[in-house]
């Protein structure tokens, strides 16, 4: 049986796994990635909004800090990745507008604005008129908006393709097979067996298998908290050149309590997302999902009905119990986590690559990553037992 040995084995070649592999290879370590179809995870469906400030939620300030750190690195990350791969990433510093359509939505958005101000974040309140001057396609009923100049966008598909190429050029061994099981010897992760029987031994193993991370066979119980699949349906429309620009920045809105976003790409693609459904590993596109997205998008931007609808798809966000990622060493020696990024995989790819590569190369997780150690959940359980 074929057996190879490498410094680091990354299980899962989505945007997170590849970012970790690329950054780790840059540090001079030998890296292999195990994935039947690398570069094709949830980021293929994601809209790629880089909006930590716009999407801030109460109680998630640590995640905000991580998101802002990653956002701040994005321009350099994209430039370096484009250089290394020779491929575009679709990074676009365009800003984001969070729009309120009626008085109720406005009140909710003002709540967010107040929260921004308490935390010292930069956002600007616009009246309905000011909002529509920036984006004339918005419905006349718009009651106000928050402009967040530093929340941008990137194309998750292009980043995936570019990371794949950058990994190839950096000498990462891309093993196109499913991980059959994790191998554990004497209480330490030692690698994985690929489908077909090939054994990949490694000094350190990174789990970056998205919503399948904790289902990896051979993973001891309790090492990773559950990472559950949260389905999102997404539409892709095309803005014909005669309509351009149509939208000039990301638009996010609460339409009668439902969250929707529209991300206009430089190349004319307009991404509309996304539903939130907890239905297991199911990626069916449903009539209801498409209807709800179009209904809310139409209410926000009536002219959307004229655009060609070119694609409908569904992806699975890897949701951890607290919506924050799992980064760094686990309770199992030799096993490192880079998963559970939920709605923020594309945003957090640069900072995840940097933090996890630093841990793999230097044995130390930088301070920024410490709140996201996977052991935070096991600690809570232990503390509770003591009470």
């Amino acid at each position, binding site marked *: 049986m074929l057996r190879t040995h490498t410094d680091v084995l990354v299980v899962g070649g989505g945007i997170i796994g590849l970012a970790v592999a690329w950054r780790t290879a840059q540090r001079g370590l030998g890296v292999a990635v195990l994935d039947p179809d690398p570069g094709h995870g949830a980021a293929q469906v994601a809209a790629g909004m880089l909006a930590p400030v716009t999407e801030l939620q109460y*109680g998630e300030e640590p995640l905000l800090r991580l998101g802002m750190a990653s956002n701040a690195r994005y321009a350099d990350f994209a430039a370096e990745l484009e250089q290394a791969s020779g491929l575009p990433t679709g990074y676009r510093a365009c800003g984001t507008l969070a729009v309120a359509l009626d008085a109720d939505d406005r009140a909710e958005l003002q709540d967010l604005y107040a929260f921004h101000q308490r935390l010292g974040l930069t956002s600007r309140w616009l009246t309905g008129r000011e909002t529509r001057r920036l984006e004339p396609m918005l419905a006349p009923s718009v009651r106000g908006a928050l402009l967040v100049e530093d929340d941008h966008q990137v194309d998750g598909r292009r980043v995936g393709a570019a990371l794949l190429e950058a990994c190839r050029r950096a000498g990462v061994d891309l093993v196109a097979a499913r991980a059959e099981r994790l191998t554990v010897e004497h209480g330490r992760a030692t690698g994985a067996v690929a489908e077909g029987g090939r054994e990949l031994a490694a000094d350190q193993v990174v789990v970056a298998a998205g919503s399948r991370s904790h289902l990896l066979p051979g993973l001891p119980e309790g090492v990773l*908290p*559950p990472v559950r699949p949260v389905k999102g349906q997404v539409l892709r429309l095309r803005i014909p050149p005669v309509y351009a620009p149509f939208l000039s920045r990301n638009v996010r809105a609460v339409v009668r309590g439902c969250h929707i976003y529209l991300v206009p790409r430089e190349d004319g693609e307009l991404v509309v997302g996304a539903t939130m459904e907890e*239905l297991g590993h199911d990626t069916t596109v449903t009539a209801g999902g498409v209807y709800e997205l179009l209904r809310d998008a139409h209410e926000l931007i009536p002219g959307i009905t004229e655009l060609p609808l070119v694609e409908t798809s569904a992806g699975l966000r890897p949701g951890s*119990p607290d919506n924050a990622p799992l980064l760094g060493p686990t309770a199992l020696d030799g096993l490192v986590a880079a998963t559970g990024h939920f709605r923020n995989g594309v945003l957090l790819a640069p900072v995840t690559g940097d933090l996890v590569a630093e841990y793999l190369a230097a044995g130390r997780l930088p301070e920024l990553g410490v709140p996201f150690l996977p052991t935070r959940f096991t600690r809570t359980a232990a503390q509770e037992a003591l009470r």
Partner: protein
Amino acid sequence: MADDILTIAGTPFGSRLIMGTGGAPSLEVLEQALKLSGTELTTVAMRRVDPTVKGSVLEVLARNSIRVLPNTAGCFTAGEAVLTARLAREALGTDWVKLEVVADERTLLPDPVELLDAAEILVDDGFTVLPYTNDDPVLARKLEDVGCAAVMPLGSPIGSGLGIRNPHNFQLIVENAGVPVILDAGAGTASDAAFAMELGCDAVMLASAVTRAQDPALMADAMRRAVEAGRMARRAGRIPRRFHAEASSPLEGRAQLDHREMPAF
């Protein structure tokens, strides 16, 4: 309060706060809130959850010994609601269902005709039906007549946080009901929950007021105490309202001073 048990369809509950799960920022936050709420019964939208998934909201309920109450949120016809209830029964092995059939997305108010129709079909099919209904005393009575195990009138529209807009109707419903009356929808803060209990509701059901609060766990704790306080106040019996003051200390036995005996200050 061991001597004050809520009984729904023969099942006892120590807590009179029924929780919903919609709108929680994360499962971890939801779990903290559910713990602090003290709830023993919690609704889950069956159209949004697959019970076979590891780490789902159903696991959160199971490990906290909270009974799951599947609901038919998002249904607009009796047909859809009946189908959803049957799928839930098959998936979760419970014949309890919180029946919701709404008329439109703008108000999310119950469609009374479809609701009554669905309730009758489900009761006949052996379900324990808890219908989300308008605050209409006549409809509440008809739902009870077809065999619902409780009635759950709305205080105000779902998620509005406007409290109980028609307390008089609630009193009428409570007075007539032979099954538990549960405030469903509208509670925005603790006083709303306490008020419902003071009006004679047997329990309060809420979700958004907790899950969308800035600190959901703290609000859950507040709601638990509010429901308990309101219930105790109802049992204790409030004083009648008066237009003018009535001194709380007695007037008898005070010194009656003659003006000649008045001391000089």
